[in-house]
């Protein structure tokens, strides 16, 4: 306890001394995020200084072992560190799929060589990773993926296509699920490999969404040669790693809506757009009722999120119950954006123009429709709840 308090004091003082003032402001846009990687260019000195100092401390990956470039913190120390970072609203110095996905997977499933090769490079922000999971014909049914990796001497030869790879066009490397045994049944023939996006035969194409531009890309593999040493875990055992990461991904659902409505009061927006009646009530009784119901549901949902967090902190596993949060949270967010559109009326119909900062209402409303699809559709979540939580018989 004393040690931990000493640690807290040390962290606090170091952060106070080293975190530039401008890095203590909330991200104003996605552009303020430091992704790192070979092509990265800092947008400000503060960004660069903060990045360099944190890399030097190993605090870009505080809980990773020191020998792999991390901070070597114990879980308790890590909690202290996070609370201190939060205390001053410090931004993350650098973050990409390498930190929150590949790193944990390598620590659990990687060989010693792989850990030594990749983890320090991630921690130092030298390599920016992207995730190659989904395929055009394997949406919710991820395990039916077809991108093939045939063994040719010391290499895999990869052919196929990945979709929904965020920032594939800006990443240096990809961790990727490939089919290495076409005869095995689904999950059984999948391997988890690492490949360089600069390899010959890799090309990417950005995906335009119904809401406009997006970070998503398609990635094409045309006889891409990948060293066999880049296989993580056993051959044909990649599904284990994939499942581990999928669950990991779903755990990140909180009570706050993303995007435009983050921290904004829907009822206030509606009052400003529509006005109040003589009794001071929003002058659209049906929208008013819808907003009240939404706010009640949102408050109740946050209560469940808090409860779940508290249980997790008390050491009770969350497991498949995270599917409940993913399901309800995303459906709630879609409702929220629908109501925002109801409130904004004609302004919500604008697609360009200054008045709406380039059609922000319409675009973010449309973007919210993807929430119940990405990271596992609502239907998949309901299926997981049905089988893993309720234990209803299989169909």
């Amino acid at each position: 306890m004393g040690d931990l308090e000493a640690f807290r004091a040390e962290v606090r003082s170091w952060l106070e001394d080293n975190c530039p003032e401008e890095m203590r402001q909330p991200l104003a846009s996605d552009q303020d995020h430091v992704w790192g990687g070979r092509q990265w260019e800092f947008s400000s000195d503060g960004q660069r200084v903060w990045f360099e100092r944190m890399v030097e401390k190993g605090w870009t990956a505080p809980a990773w072992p020191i020998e792999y470039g991390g901070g070597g913190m114990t879980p308790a120390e890590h909690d202290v560190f996070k609370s201190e970072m939060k205390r001053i609203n410090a931004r993350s110095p650098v973050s990409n799929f390498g930190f929150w996905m590949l790193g944990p997977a390598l620590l659990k499933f990687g060989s010693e060589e792989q850990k030594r090769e990749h983890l320090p490079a991630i921690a130092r922000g030298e390599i920016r990773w992207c995730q190659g999971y989904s395929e055009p014909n394997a949406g919710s049914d991820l395990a039916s993926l077809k991108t093939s990796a045939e063994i040719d001497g010391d290499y895999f030869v990869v052919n196929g296509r990945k979709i929904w790879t965020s920032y594939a066009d800006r990443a240096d490397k990809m961790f990727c699920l490939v089919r290495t045994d076409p005869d095995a049944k689904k999950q059984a023939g999948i391997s988890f490999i690492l490949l360089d996006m600069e390899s010959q035969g890799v090309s990417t194409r950005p995906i335009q969404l119904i809401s406009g531009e997006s970070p998503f890309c398609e990635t094409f593999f045309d006889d891409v040669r990948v060293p066999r040493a880049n296989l993580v875990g056993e051959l044909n055992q990649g599904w284990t790693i994939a499942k581990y990461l999928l669950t990991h991904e779903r755990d990140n659902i909180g009570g706050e809506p993303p995007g435009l409505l983050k921290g904004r009061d829907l009822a206030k927006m509606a009052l400003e757009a529509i006005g109040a009646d003589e009794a001071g009530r929003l002058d659209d009784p049906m929208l008013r009722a819808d907003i009240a119901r939404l706010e009640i549901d949102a408050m109740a949902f946050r209560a469940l999120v808090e409860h779940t967090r508290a249980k997790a902190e008390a050491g009770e596993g969350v497991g498949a119950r995270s599917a409940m949060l993913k399901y309800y949270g995303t459906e709630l967010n879609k409702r929220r954006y629908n109501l925002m559109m109801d409130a904004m009326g004609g302004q919500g119909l604008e697609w360009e123009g200054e008045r709406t900062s380039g059609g922000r209402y319409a675009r973010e409303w449309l973007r919210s429709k993807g929430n119940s699809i990405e990271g596992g559709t609502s239907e998949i979540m309901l299926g997981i709840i049905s089988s893993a939580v309720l234990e209803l018989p299989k169909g």
Partner: protein
Amino acid sequence: MILNEEQQMLADLAERIFADKASVDTLRAIRGGSHGNDYDQDLWQAMVESGLTGILVPEDQGGMEFGLVSAGLVAREVGRRLALTPFLSTAVLGAIAIGRGGNDDQKSRWLGPIASGELIVALALDESAKHRPERVATQATAAGDGYTVTGQKTLVLDAANAGVFIVSAMLDGTPRLFAVEIGAGTVDVEPVVSLDTRSMADVRFDAAQAELLDGDDNTLDAVLDAGRAMLAMELVGLSRAVFERTLTYLSERKQFGQRIGSFQALQHRAAHLSVEIEISEAMAFQALAAFDSGADDASQQILAAKARAAETARLASAEGVQMHGGMGMTDEFDIGFFMKRARAASELFGDANFCTERFARAKGY
């Protein structure tokens, strides 16, 4: 929120007592002879013995002096077992009205007997078929040292067995709470046979002798908060119970050569319902904890909890009956009792619309 050790022990205790004493069979038996005035006396006795009747009564009056979260753990069992008990009227509403509003003399006269199970208290607020607590036509008039109250009340729980009534009445243009002891004047109790066999009555006060409960300006608000909070927990409990029975049925009943729980359309509906229940329960606990900690927005949270719990119970009981098919429509199966109870508990102290309306108003839109 996570239960602390004391609360967890209480939860276990309540579950044990109710599992042991309360069942739908008791409900059926009481219904058979019901004229709107019965409750489960065995259960009440067991609650007295374990101290649950004094859960909100101060220790110096022989109670446990716990908070609303703890009382909610009992209310959840009440809903889960469809128990017929004056717990809400007496152990919660009576204890809070007298505990917050009573003077030392009133407290010492009534709180002990509440804790010991000797006194049943009935709260008489509503005067019309829909809950409108601020519409009070009942009048209080100063008379000697005290007052008399005159007026007609409805939806009064446990009136037939009450020794003390807590009555809202207008005094100098403001609604205040009064206590009327049975025998202290003209109180005419007309029991109503209710759809869920809950003890309920119309009550007429004719210049009945009354004492002002003058302790705390916010006593009525606290009583309303507590009533809604307890009913929210009842509704959560019954939602869980009807859902458990439905899940069991889905896992056992076969149609078209398959267990019906394997049909994906039913699975998705059951999964959705399970999420609604989890969320309503989390909301209810959070709201009760907010009340206990005196949070500013406790009333709002309780309104939210009651509105949600009512909607969840409506869905849970409707899905319960529908998924049980024709069997769910028979009186022989227990499933319909949950639907009846859900209706009554939703209506009392303000239905989902009422709570949502007040919530919006409190939020300023």
